[in-house]
């Protein structure tokens, strides 16, 4: 049985947000939605200060509170560990958003095309011959496909007004045996993804060789994301360099 998980090695993370950007391009997420967000923190007072980074994707919990509260079965957990949203079922009630302790769910308030960095006119007539009018111009056709044994529209197909979306571990890439976009791009290999049921995978090796911790372990959510290095965030941390949108 395959069981996917991710390691975030904070001894390597540079806080560059390459993962954030790769995710946004791959998944065509709209402005303000950060399926993979990287927090930048500092703590202490001069000169005794420390800085830290914390990439935060969906934790793809084994005991996912978002799945439990979904009234329509749109949010579900696959056998391989991925927690996904069926865009055709979601009614936008936002219960998942309330239930999740990690803040990884995003509600689509606007028509996605309008929220797609509309300071730039992607419908510009001189661009049409190249893009055929798609918005964004790098629109990924895989996102509209049906994925998995269940054949459900789960790959960020939720880019519609009034429904929920979040990190999918890039289901459309995982099904092609590729790493999620964030993992693929990480300049310092701080992100590792793979099958933890197979002891021979790099991620299994990583988990055997390193001490790990998880976000809000006390919440009993049993995340599929494991952190190496650093320390769990505390109230001592002050967030710096926040993106324009609230996340």
């Amino acid at each position, binding site marked *: 049985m395959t069981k996917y998980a991710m390691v975030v090695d904070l001894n*390597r993370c540079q*806080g560059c947000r390459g993962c954030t950007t790769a995710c946004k391009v791959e998944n065509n997420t709209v402005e303000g939605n950060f399926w993979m967000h990287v927090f*930048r923190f*500092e703590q202490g007072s001069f000169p005794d200060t420390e800085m830290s980074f914390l990439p935060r994707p969906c934790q793809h919990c084994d005991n996912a509170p978002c799945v439990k509260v979904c009234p329509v079965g749109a949010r579900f957990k696959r056998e391989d560990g991925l927690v996904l949203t069926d865009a055709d079922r979601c009614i936008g009630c936002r219960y998942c958003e309330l239930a999740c302790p990690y803040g990884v769910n995003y509600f689509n308030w606007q028509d996605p095309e309008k929220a797609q960095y509309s300071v730039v006119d992607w419908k510009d007539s001189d661009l049409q011959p190249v893009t055929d009018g798609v918005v964004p111009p790098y629109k990924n056709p895989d996102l509209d496909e049906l994925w998995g044994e269940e054949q459900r529209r789960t790959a960020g197909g939720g880019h519609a007004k009034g429904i929920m979306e979040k990190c999918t571990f890039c289901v459309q890439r995982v099904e092609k045996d590729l790493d999620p976009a964030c993992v693929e791009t990480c300049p310092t290999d701080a992100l590792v993804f793979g099958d933890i049921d197979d002891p021979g995978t790099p991620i299994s090796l990583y988990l055997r060789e390193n001490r790990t911790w998880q976000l809000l372990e006390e919440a009993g959510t049993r995340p599929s994301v494991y952190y190496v290095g650093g320390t769990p965030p505390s109230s001592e941390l002050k967030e710096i360099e926040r993106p324009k949108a609230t996340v």
Partner: protein
Amino acid sequence: MSEVFLGMPTITRRTLVKGSAAIVGTSVVASNFLFKSLDGVAIAQETTASGPVEDFVATTCWIGKQDCGMIARRIDGRVVKFDGNPTNPRNVGTLCPKGQGQIQAMYDPNRVKWPLVRTNEKGVSGEWRRATWDEALDLVAEKVNEVRARDPKMVLWQKGRSKAKDFYDDAFVKSTGISKLGHGAFCSDAGYRALEYTIGTHAVLHPDFRYCNYMLSWGWNITNAGGNKFCWLTWPRHMVKARDRGMKIAHLDPRLRSAGPFADTWLPIRPGTDLAMALALCHELIRQDYLDRPYLTKYTNAPFLIKADGTVARVTVGEGDEAEDVGLVWDEASGAAVPFGETDDPVLEGEFVLDGEKVKTAFQLFIEHVADATPEWAADITGLTAEQISSVASEFGRQAQIGSTLVVDGVEVPYRPVGIMAYHMAQQELGFQTARAMTMVPMLVGAIGAAGGQLSDFTWKIYKNYAKYEKLTVEDPPYDFLLNNSKFFPINTGSPAVVAGVMNDPERYGVEDLPEVAILHMVNPLNSFPSQPEYLRSYLKFKFVAVISPWLSETADYFADVVLPAATIEKYEGPISATDQYIDAVTLRIPPMEPLFESRGEIDIYMDLCERMGTLYGEEGYLAVVNKELKLDDTPFVLPLDSKPEVRHIFDQWAKSQGIDEGIEYFEDPQKGVYVKGPVSPNKIYGYVADPPFGGAMHRLYGESLLDAQQQMKAKGAEKIYWQDYTAFPTWRAPTMDASPAEYEFYLLSYHQIEHKQSRTSFIPILAELAPGAHLDINPEAAARLGISEGDSVRVESHNAVTGETRRLTTTATMLDSIRPDTVAMPHHFGMWTHPQNEAQGPSANEIYFTGEGYLANTGDQSFHVKVKVTKGGDA
């Protein structure tokens, strides 16, 4: 899924343990280097009867400095994603946020879509009419040739970044005979000049990450910016691997943000005091006897005997054409001075009598020079404690393991696993001598060119300036507009700020002829370089300005007569080095799509321009220089000099000349894309084992010609502000800015954020979302004293300690504990106005920096330091 990628193996990182010996593509590379490349095999073309066609093209990133390898994924020919090319040693399948985000830049409909001709006056926002390429190119050729006919040097080609030097800096500039101006005076050129002078390399400082155990990260913006030679991505990759081995980092920077969590020790040094710090480190290394005497006596001028007037005692050796003046050293055995090289063991320290005159070794003078540079002395200047300074020196000396060797790939190399990474911090008023002083720290322990030690360039081929600087020439006016060989900047970077100063006041600088036409290549001085008021005046003096750029830069907006739209990544460009320093590789930029709108690649633009100017064909023409620079001469692949080739054909010929039978197709192939030549030999990496060692350069601890230049400058009547830093050893003085009144209590720094590249990305929405705009980082303790809280609008006023001029900007305060309380800082990416995304991004620190005397190094390089006062209020 294997069925998606027809006929392709589908090994991926997830199904293969790191380090397995799977070899894909080139076989010369170690397996763990291929760790990332295992993904690369899952690249092929998928074709279905009805669905969209997916394919992949290898190309090279355009947005940053170091040109990472990329694979473009296309759907029906439309690029939907860039990923890192796994076979490129430089980025090994990874990309930074800019690399990912540039896809928005490529499609940006706010690019310059077609050639533009100005219809209103200059010095204000431009109004434009659409022109044809023919009309625009004819106009540029006519205006350039008009001036060229009188004096080609009065045509100025100014670049920000040149991504195909052979075709731009070399072929275009050389074949037309025009003047060239770069951006280095705002980058790290003070450091380049210092290293060229001191050890002969054309670079700044970086450690040998493969073996280094203790690194001084000296102003290195580790998590946010580039470093020596590379852009950001490659150095952090090397650094995290080094830390896996246990390398420790001492970080010297007024801000900790630069290092993020990667500083084992943070030394929050006061801005502009690095030279004092370096001298104190030298003092401590000497006091604690951490000295590599064999290196110092064999490869540096430390044992040379120096006369009372500061000149080296020399003797003529050889006869006739072979006669040369050689420095004398003291031979203990014979008790006499002998020419350098005639004794294996010259005396390093001491005072002697030579021909009745007292002489001292250069090293003796250096010991005396740093005798008072105690940690206590430097503590007062740098704002660090004496203990901090002393402990860094002790650690550096101890970890250097002087006398040890390491066998690298079968070659025994001196092993000194300590080094410095320093880059843009050279851009301060004392920058040249600061970088020299910093270089002396690893010199003392023999770490230059050692395994694990201090590296600089990726080669020990000595740069031409090394020989030139043996004797500096200071001439009488009139000077050229770059002030070459002048009494102002005898060592001269070629600074746009200096040129602007000269254009605004040629009499003051003894200049008679000023440039009349400018061609601006991927450069935006008005926004990117200090300081705006100088450029606002000087660019108006050009009779004609042509801009070649994908976007309407602010400089183009105010001053261009013609704008020629360049493509972004959609063009052929190269050849591009793909080395990570340890593996040698080369690649090209391949257009993943046709150039958008009516834009064109710069090589096409220059060839067409040269054709119209009459400089494309013939023995001296553009194509002839291309043949020479690409080394196509005397090969079957030489370009004919009488017909204009397709750019793709040029690179096809070049690829074949490299022994790549597939030609250009090799580089277009997503499974290849990068020509990996193999591991770099230790004899190329390490100066000690280079042939000849260190490229034959004698390392100049003692700067005889600097002192000589000072005397020449004085004799020609130069003011003290120009000659004061031309000293044989780096000599501390308080920077000019310290003379500003006490109310200007803060040092202002500007810095680079990882989401942006200078001013080239702040309008890319996906990046601007992450790093949205200008702000002023201020320590909460200092802010509280001024009644300033997070998010407050603040007024920042700078003061010029030489002229008394003040400048102001308004921005938003951001509380940051990890910055010295006497220092404030701003990101430097903003202050633009031509793109809709620029709205409300706020100002650039460059608006309140000063250039000119007191804010330039003695090499004409720009200082990014100024004293400011900060007050609450103002319209943000």
